[in-house]
């Protein structure tokens, strides 16, 4: 996390999450890209998937909102991964 940023330069978190296959990354993207950030949160979040990777970019001027957003994302990501482990592998398209 870049903590040196000032108000004019937003705080940024970038995550790259690998999945066993690109299909699983695609499913995680499908689940995790739906929900908008809460209205009161100032965080801008973008989710992209490329091959077997999921890339998430968080941006905010407020470190507290940023932390909450990243924490929530990890909770949700964990739930997706566990769901895949117990109820996967994905059926063929």
């Amino acid at each position, binding site marked *: 996390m870049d903590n040196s940023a000032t108000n004019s330069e937003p705080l940024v978190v970038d995550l790259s999450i690998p999945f066993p296959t690109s299909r699983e990354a695609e*499913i*995680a993207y*499908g*689940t*995790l*890209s*739906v*929900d*908008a950030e*809460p209205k009161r949160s100032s965080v801008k979040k973008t989710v992209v998937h490329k091959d077997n990777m999921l890339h998430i970019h968080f941006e905010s001027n407020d470190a507290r909102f940023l932390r909450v957003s990243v924490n*929530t994302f990890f*909770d*949700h990501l*964990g*739930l*997706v991964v*566990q*769901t*895949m482990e*117990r*109820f*996967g*592998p*994905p*059926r063929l*398209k």
Partner: protein
Amino acid sequence: MVIAIGFEGSANKLGIGIMKDGVVLANPRHTYITPPGQGFLPRDTAKHHQAHALDVLQEALDEAKIKPEDIDVICYTKGPGMGAPLVSTAIVARTVAQLWQKPILGVNHCIGHIEMGRLITGADNPTVLYVSGGNTQVIAYLEQRYRIFGETIDIAVGNCLDRFARVLKLSNDPSPGYNIEQLAKKGNKFLELPYAVKGMDVSFSGLLSYIEEKAPGLIESGEYTPEDLCFSLQETVFAMLIEITERAMAHCGSQEVLIVGGVGCNQRLQEMMGIMAEERGAKLYATDDRFCIDNGAMIAQAGWEMFRTGQTTPLQETTCTQRFRTDEVEVTWRS
């Protein structure tokens, strides 16, 4: 033959139910129970749902004796409810819908209650009293909408009961309302409380403030017992609900009344409603705690009806919403 699975997590109950053409194949539920004196907060409730969703899902599949490939549609509660718990539950629904290559459908929680109540009781076109910890509405069906005839203008009746249970430090197991009901059975000295019916609407917050403020002193002095206060509270709030329900029935010329929602399993409420219905020559329909209290099967049942008329939700639109009124949904499955 259509098999629908429903994911419910709008409040402190995490439920997953499986319906096959009007038959309940499985309906397990796990409730987040807080210590006496405490309510459930969004974040902790979301953590509870995250921790239990997959076990409850496995339990549902085992109990129904079906495989994921047998399922035709995945239904989840879109709202209304608490944001974080709703999203946590929807995340599991979205993920399995993709893993299993099944269509997904967002369901209105209130519609779930109504459709499950109609299915279980066989009520055809009832006036509905929907009473729970988060909702208080009198509803009647007209031209493709469940129309709200009356509702609370502040807190839900169940919230009023739950919060008074906290004042008395009653257990939240199995639910605060259940424990209020048990105490009320032993009460007999009636304390007059503010009775707030405003047209077709009801208000409970003033009444709650009043009894919250008075209760400690009245119990301390020995003037009233906690049992008397639970009795007085129930008699007052239920009388208000019966009054607006009766007025809606008179307006609609309805001969059926259906009680749904968590407070709907209260025996005293059912008894009072039964008396009113009998006096009008109408019939009362109610269910027990398996279907009154939030559960997954009700979401599957409403979803089953929606799916039958060709509805599904594109994955990118499977959001959740804390506010989602009963009358926003076009009822495509009824004539």
